[in-house]
């Protein structure tokens, strides 16, 4: 269980997040959405221990800011928005870094299976720095998957924290990655993802948290959060939400108001 209450955080002394409350259960996908600068990534950084915060943020009962890196690494993995590799590691070497904490053992060709899941079979020997942005993003997703391969262990559920996991991907791979996240949650793990694509969020997330100016504007199921009123207020532009049968809300931005 992820339990966040009255969480506030500053960046360089400037308050960014104000009194955030959020609960995410294992077995669900939570999407954090909101306009640029609303504090989505800052919230994720607080939840992953990168940023000090006031209030509480507990993951499986562990207060994030007080739990040693090694213990956190055993229960959650984090996919950053982008990763700049310092040296020419191969794809396989990078994916194996997911085994660094030593919590997840290599098992039965885990790196190979992770690469297969993200659609990069046979890429193992390639130099990561020579791959395209989207391919690199998927390499790091494979690394993150390797770190917390089993969604549930005897110590409880494990978590994926994803910061814009589909931003660099084409539409096919966006679906691949979101399906992976969905499957992880369906198998008992928890997924918390910062998302820009509201339609993908609506399709794959159980719970949507809409941020505006560092505050929670609305949260809940997609059809209660992704409404014309909320979105127009959050994004400052006219949005029309249509319900696609059996799929929940579906929206297209309207270039011209009215």
């Amino acid at each position, binding site marked *: 269980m992820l339990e966040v209450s009255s969480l506030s955080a500053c960046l360089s002394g400037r308050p960014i997040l104000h009194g955030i409350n959020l609960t995410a259960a294992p077995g669900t996908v939570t999407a954090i959405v909101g306009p640029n600068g609303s504090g989505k990534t800052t919230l994720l*950084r607080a939840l*992953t*221990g*990168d940023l*000090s915060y006031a209030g509480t943020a507990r993951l499986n009962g562990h207060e994030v800011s007080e739990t*040693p*890196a*090694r213990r*956190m*690494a*055993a229960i959650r*993995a*984090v996919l*950053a928005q982008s*990763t*700049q*590799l*310092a*040296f*020419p*590691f*191969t794809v*396989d*070497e*990078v994916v*194996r*870094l*997911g085994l*660094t*904490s*030593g*919590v997840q053992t290599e098992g039965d060709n885990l790196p190979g299976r992770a690469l297969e899941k993200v659609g990069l079979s046979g890429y*193992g*020997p*390639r*130099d990561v*720095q020579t791959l395209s942005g989207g391919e690199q993003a998927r390499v790091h997703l494979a690394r993150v998957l390797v*770190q917390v391969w089993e969604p549930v262990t005897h110590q409880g559920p494990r978590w994926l924290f994803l910061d814009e996991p589909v931003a660099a991907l084409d539409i096919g791979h966006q679906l691949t990655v979101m399906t992976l996240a969905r499957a992880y949650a369906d198998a008992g793990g928890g997924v918390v993802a910062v998302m820009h694509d509201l339609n993908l969020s609506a399709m794959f997330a159980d719970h949507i948290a809409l941020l505006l100016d560092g505050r929670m504007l609305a949260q809940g199921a997609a059809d209660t959060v992704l409404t014309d009123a909320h979105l127009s207020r959050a994004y400052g532009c006219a949005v029309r939400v249509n319900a696609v049968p059996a799929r929940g809300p579906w929206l297209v931005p309207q270039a011209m108001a009215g």
Partner: protein
Amino acid sequence: MVALSLEREAPAPRDRAARAALTSRALVVLLIVVSVLSLGTGAAGLSLFGMARDLISGEGLSQRDQVILMDIRLPRLAMGLLIGAALAMSGALMQGLFRNPLADPGIVGVGAGAGLGAVLAIVLGGLLPVGLAALVGTHLVPVAAFLGGWASTLLLYRVATKGGQTSVATMLLAGIALGALAGALTGILVYLADDTQLRDLTFWNMGSLAGASWAKLGASLPLILPVLLLSPLLARGLNALALGEAQATHLGIHVETVKRLAILGVAAAAGAAVAVAGGIGFIGIVVPHLLRLATGPDHRYLLPNAALLGASLLVGADMIARVIVSPAELPIGIITATIGAPVFLWILLKRRGLGGL
């Protein structure tokens, strides 16, 4: 260069592991070959064959040969191996720490700080109380240089660390400023120095193993040996750090500990090396680069292999320094720079094609 292949396609990790093991063995062989050659090389015309013949025939070495071997060539060989390994290791550690293949102790001011310490000792050493001067004796310059390197590293760390987090960018920039400051203070001291001191300074500055002795070896060994033996323990942490500090933390690495230990290792190895051998450049940058080309950037292989190749390279360079203008000898820093700087430029040119440094 033995066992270094420069293919464009990166080999598969399993191949890389096998290749790294092979490279290690080749480097050990290279080390032995270079060491033996080094023992047989020098101004005194003491040949390996002659020594071997004397030993086998049961006559034993002549007293002259014994003195040359035991008091000159062996300590010099040992110093070359130790300093070479220390320079390459400190470079590899620093590059892993800074996530930049062009970082080097010389860049973050450790070398400049150590240099300031040494110059301080050379120029102002005479002002020490006689009792104290007698106590430290010939160790004065090495000890001062090591302290200078250590102090600059600590200061650098203070400046660059905030709230338990060290910013690599701040540290690099602070290192540049610190290096400039140490350089300026060194300049003032050089201005104050008399002719004899200037001569000492010049030779120290160019870097040399000419003053090698068992005593100097004894002074640097306790600093360098632990770094050589323990650094490989940091390999996993440095590999994770290649993703960035936050992501290394997410992988379960206690990043602050890794950084602190790496900084300590760099200060000890580079400071001690600068102290006893002066400014010997480029080993710390060139050796890890060549090894990354051959076996990839994995620090588990890179760190030990860097020590091996650095040792061979410096002993080889020292051999050249001793024979090229025999019976006189060139400061070794000139040799390493002559070989190292073009290699460094070549690496830069190759990297330029890959887009950025």
